[in-house]
């Protein structure tokens, strides 16, 4: 073996070791979810054990996890779609009908995303209470759509600017309406970009906690609110079931992020590259 190959091998081993260490808490959670409650709190910790799916059966499929997950899925999908529906035409105007004020509006939009949630939670609570939106899906959907809207406009505008305008002009010469421009020309071309945008919005919404915990009580609460109520105090034998429920809560986003790593990077670096 040459020195160079030995160096690469050492590099690979070191990096994988570091990566494994960073990942370990997540792995430990997943492993604990497959232990019996006694094994889960054994000391010293058990590294080898006979896996059981009892916790998953009881805590995830027998408990309220699926109910909360239903809330999360519905709120996440609906708010992301609403943000895209509002953001797509806005991005169209920003990208193809630039005026003197376009850059200013863009920056203003991004600045709304920087508004600290804690700074506006009080009036939002009062407004939600007065409009009977507390603890409703609709309330959180409207709120999260607004939370993701600046990101959607920013990213989709960027992607649209990469589309050659000649393509749109050609469609117009063929008599395409605005709707046809959206669906026939832009949508197919922007699909990868839209996927990256939706992915980031999905991650932020799925994991959101601050608004969720303050504006819902039970009926419309997403998973994050349920997970935050876990306490070891609910009996020391709760650790394994808690892990099962927590694992179920994070798996969809983990897997989505793993599959769409490229899109994730595109989304995160949009601001730096443009």
């Amino acid at each position, binding site marked *: 073996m040459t020195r160079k190959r030995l160096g690469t091998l050492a*590099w*690979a081993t*070191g*990096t*994988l070791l570091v*990566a494994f260490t*960073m*990942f370990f*808490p*997540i792995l*430990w*959670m997943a492993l*604990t979810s497959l232990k019996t409650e006694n094994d*889960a709190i054994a000391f010293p*910790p058990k590294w080898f054990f006979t896996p059981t799916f009892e916790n998953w059966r009881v805590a995830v499929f027998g408990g309220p996890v699926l109910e909360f997950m239903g809330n999360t899925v519905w709120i996440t999908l609906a708010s992301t779609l609403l943000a895209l529906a*509002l*953001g797509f*035409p806005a991005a169209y*105007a920003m990208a*193809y009908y630039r005026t003197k004020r376009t850059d200013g*509006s*863009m920056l203003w939009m991004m600045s*709304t995303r*920087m*508004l*600290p*949630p*804690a*700074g506006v939670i009080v009036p939002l*609570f*009062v*407004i939600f209470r007065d409009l009977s939106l507390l603890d409703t899906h609709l309330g959180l959907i*409207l*709120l999260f759509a607004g939370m993701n809207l*600046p990101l959607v*406009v920013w990213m989709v*505008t960027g992607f649209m*600017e990469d589309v*050659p*305008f000649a393509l749109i*002009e050609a469609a117009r010469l063929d008599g395409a309406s605005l709707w046809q421009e959206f669906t026939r020309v832009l949508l197919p071309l922007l699909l990868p970009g839209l996927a990256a945008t939706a992915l980031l919005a999905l*991650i932020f919404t*799925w*994991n959101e*906690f601050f608004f969720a915990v*303050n504006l819902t009580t039970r009926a419309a609460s997403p998973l*994050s609110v349920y*997970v*935050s109520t876990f306490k*070891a105090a609910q009996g020391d034998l709760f*650790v394994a079931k*808690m*892990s099962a429920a927590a694992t179920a*809560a*994070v798996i969809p986003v983990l897997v989505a*992020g793993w599959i769409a790593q490229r899109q*994730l990077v595109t989304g*995160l*670096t949009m601001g*730096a590259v443009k």
Partner: protein
Amino acid sequence: MTTSVIQPKRRRRIGEGRRFLSAPAIVYLILLTQVPFALTIYYSFTNWNLLRPGSAGFLGFGSMFRNYQRILQNPDFWQVLTNTLVLTLSVVVVTFVLGMAFALLLSRPFPGRTLARTLLISPFLMMPVASAVVWKYLLLDPAFGLSAWVSRSLGLPAVYLVEFAPLASIIAIVSWQWTPFVMLILLAGLQSLPEDVVEAARLDGAGPLGLFRFVTLPHLRRFIEIALLLEIIFVLNVFGQIFVITSGGPGIQTTNLPYQIFLEAFSRWNIGRASAYGIFAIVLANLAVILFLQVVRRSRQEEGR
């Protein structure tokens, strides 16, 4: 954003009105952010407390700043502000150092690189309250947690890290979550570094350190700036981890501004006071961004750009 250069005149001919397609989004954002913002300012001048019915009154021009005065006179506020700043700055420093190191590790090809990257980005995808639960009950528990096992194996007494160093624990856990974010952005920066530039610098006799200092870092500048800016904005708002792990305690040792607002609004139901705290949070976020941009501008000028 790049400025489009494609014939603006010809474009104007069709559907001039289409530039108003951005109106719904803008109106939506005004309703959702500016209206609550204005209301926060208004409430901060009232003595409204949901536990005292009929208390929704304006404080009067003579004493309209009473909520602000009370906050500024309260020594707890300064502790909370310090906590917020220490938490945010520490997380930014830790994640920058680790994120840069990890990005450099991933920047050259080796067998298993995709696996390593997949494992490394995972903490960022974790629901913050879920990672809080995992850290608190599975890893740091003083009775059966892994940290207890590690310290006992080393012959040390098993301390409960969350009680022993509460703020440091929160900083560590939040940093674990945010390191991948910085890493991903810096990695994208490293991979956009043109190979021929690196090659040329090597031919000029640059060593690995010189290469990093004079070629890689300047190229990464924009990526570093955007990563840190976004991180500051997000970490100022950390809430879930504190809610689950320490509830702001012991005492107020881990209470940051968002958590203080949460307590003021939803356990004391003091709408007026909580709103005044909210204004402080908004001002702090703006100051942080402005200050950061200032630093960026100055360091650019020094480099003669």
